[in-house]
């Protein structure tokens, strides 16, 4: 019987070609959108983890309260021993200190007079730790020069460097305030320039060694935040939450400078964003099912009108209504399978292309503070294809179920009359 159904589908293009085309287009668009959004989410998580949140981080209670202001004056000092203990307690996480600070950068001329001044955003990492350098993809971000090798060297964002028409190995002065509020200034040599592909960082950022920042901000043995990364570098909320609860149960108390562990989802509204994106993915899938389902329902109704005589004849020949209805569902399923597979295959090709080449969104993210890479790569994962294929099947069967209801309203008593004409 299935062979008979398939033969009918193949030979009757209006019964198969148009619905297959709709499903193919729908699945293609859906798998692509899901892969794109999934890639976007991953990019956002990756960038936030690298530059702002870590997979986990340890901060003081007081710092956590004003974390959006990056108040390094509420950070840790002389915590080398504690840091070692935390590393020993949680060996499944790789830990690294960071200091974020703001400062005024003064560009002097040969005689020491100010030529340019501007706000800069400083990020201090441990240059002696190759993993810390790799965490922010510093080698890949390096545009000119080299990574600092000696004290007093910094990296400057390429955008700021070009804007101020600076030269490598020239000296700039940073003016800021220490942990205790005293004025602080220090000269730095520009060893290189960087571009992270994140406009929020590339507008006016500097990268310096943690020891230089400690000296500049008078934070001996300190850090504003201790970042933790899972070894796989892929965020796993379940694992992270477990570590966080264990740490906080052990070390956190009510003291302002007591250490507190935060997960990525506790920061920058990332928890909300991930939930929102998950909801958006679900919404795309549901909207796809509804739209394609309605289109196929309509196509099914037109088809039922066209095949009115056939259905009547088959009912007269003794075929039961539910059998005829099931036949329509089998046809729909076959269309759904073929359309979904073609759509998924085409979608995979498109996803693969953008997985390699990516979309350059740099133009659109110039004025945003969101931690998203300029180039978004689609996420090539089997589950994304399945997320497109399943609604492809559901929508065709749903469309056929709705369109086929008319069969049950068919009055067999009128079949002779209907089939006479």
């Amino acid at each position, binding site marked *: 019987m299935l062979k008979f159904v398939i033969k009918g589908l193949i030979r009757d293009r209006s019964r198969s070609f148009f619905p297959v085309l709709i499903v193919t287009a729908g699945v293609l668009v859906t798998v692509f959108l899901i892969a794109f959004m999934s890639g976007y989410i991953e990019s956002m998580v990756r960038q936030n983890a690298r530059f702002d949140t870590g997979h986990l981080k340890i901060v003081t209670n007081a710092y956590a309260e004003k974390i959006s202001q990056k108040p390094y004056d509420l950070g840790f000092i002389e915590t080398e021993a504690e840091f070692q203990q935390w590393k020993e307690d949680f060996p499944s996480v790789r830990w690294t200190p960071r200091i974020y600070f703001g400062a005024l950068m003064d560009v002097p001329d040969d005689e020491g007079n100010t030529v340019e001044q501007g706000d800069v955003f400083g990020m201090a990492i441990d240059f002696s730790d190759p993993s810390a350098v790799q965490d922010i993809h510093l080698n890949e971000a390096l545009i000119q020069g080299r990574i600092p090798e000696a004290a007093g060297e910094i990296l400057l964002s390429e955008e700021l460097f070009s804007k101020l028409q600076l030269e490598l190995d020239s000296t700039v002065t940073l003016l800021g305030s220490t942990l205790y509020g005293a004025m602080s200034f220090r000269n730095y040599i520009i060893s290189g320039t960087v571009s992270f592909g994140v406009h929020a960082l590339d507008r006016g950022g500097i990268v310096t060694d943690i020891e230089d920042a400690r000296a500049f901000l008078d934070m001996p043995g300190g850090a504003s935040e201790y970042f933790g990364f899972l070894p796989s570098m892929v965020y796993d909320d379940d694992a992270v939450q477990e570590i966080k609860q264990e740490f906080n149960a052990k070390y956190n108390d009510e003291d302002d400078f007591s250490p507190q562990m935060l997960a990525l989802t506790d920061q920058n509204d990332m928890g909300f964003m991930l939930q929102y994106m998950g909801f958006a993915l679900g919404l795309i899938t549901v909207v796809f099912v509804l739209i394609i389902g309605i289109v196929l329902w309509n196509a099914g109704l037109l088809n039922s009108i066209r095949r009115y005589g056939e259905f009547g004849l088959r009912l007269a020949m*003794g075929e039961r209504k539910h059998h005829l209805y099931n036949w329509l569902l089998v046809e729909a399923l076959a269309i759904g399978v073929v359309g979904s597979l073609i759509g998924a295959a085409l979608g995979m090709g498109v996803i693969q292309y953008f997985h390699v080449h990516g979309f350059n969104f740099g133009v659109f993210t110039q004025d945003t503070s969101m931690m998203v890479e300029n180039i978004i790569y689609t996420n090539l994962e089997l589950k994304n294809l399945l997320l497109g294929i399943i609604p492809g099947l559901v929508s065709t069967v749903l469309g056929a179920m709705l369109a086929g209801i008319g069969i049950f309203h068919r009055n*067999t008593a009128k079949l*002779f009359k209907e*089939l006479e004409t």
Partner: protein
Amino acid sequence: MTESLVKIRNLSKLYPTGGGGFLALSELDLDIPSGAFMGLVGPSGSGKTTLLNIIGTLDNQSGGEIEVLGHKVSTLDAKESAALRAEKIGFIFQSYNLLPVYTVYENVELPLLLLKMPKAQRHEAVMQALTWVGITDKRKSRPNQLSGGEGQRVSIARAMVKLPQLVLADEPTANLDTENSLNILDTMLQINKDTGTTFIFATHDQKVIDYMQRVVTLIDGKKAKDDLKTGS
């Protein structure tokens, strides 16, 4: 005496209308023996098709009793009446109603698929039916490649392929020219003689009426005449 294949007693059919209802059949008594080749004739609106619908278990009567192939039609549920049609009743329509996407062979095969008959048995039955109607050479053709006469032959083969006990034909020659009509009628008469299948026609075509062994005339839903031809 031949056993009645269809037994009708005091049959009536009332179609509800705004003005109280239209009586399509009334006080009808009829016995149709197995192997009959008979016609229901009468003008339009006389109740021919309504009677065929009821005999074919497509519809129920409003009053009286009708027994088809030993089953009381009024007591059959949808599943039972569908099974009866699928196994024992064949239909031939005025406009053939062949499925255009399937070949002649596949159109004739369809009723057997509904009966879940094994493939080898199906093939044998389909070829036998196509042989009866003399159209085996067209088995791979599609309906749109057939003439009107050939189309109706396929329709007869489809009705006969499951070897039904009863074939109901509603105006089977209405779309055919005289030559094709006579060929079709010859074919059906031959099948009737060879297989003993009962044929009931609804018609007002004189060519068809001339072929009938028995002609029941209906007027305003009532049996007006019941002529059994000599020699039949």
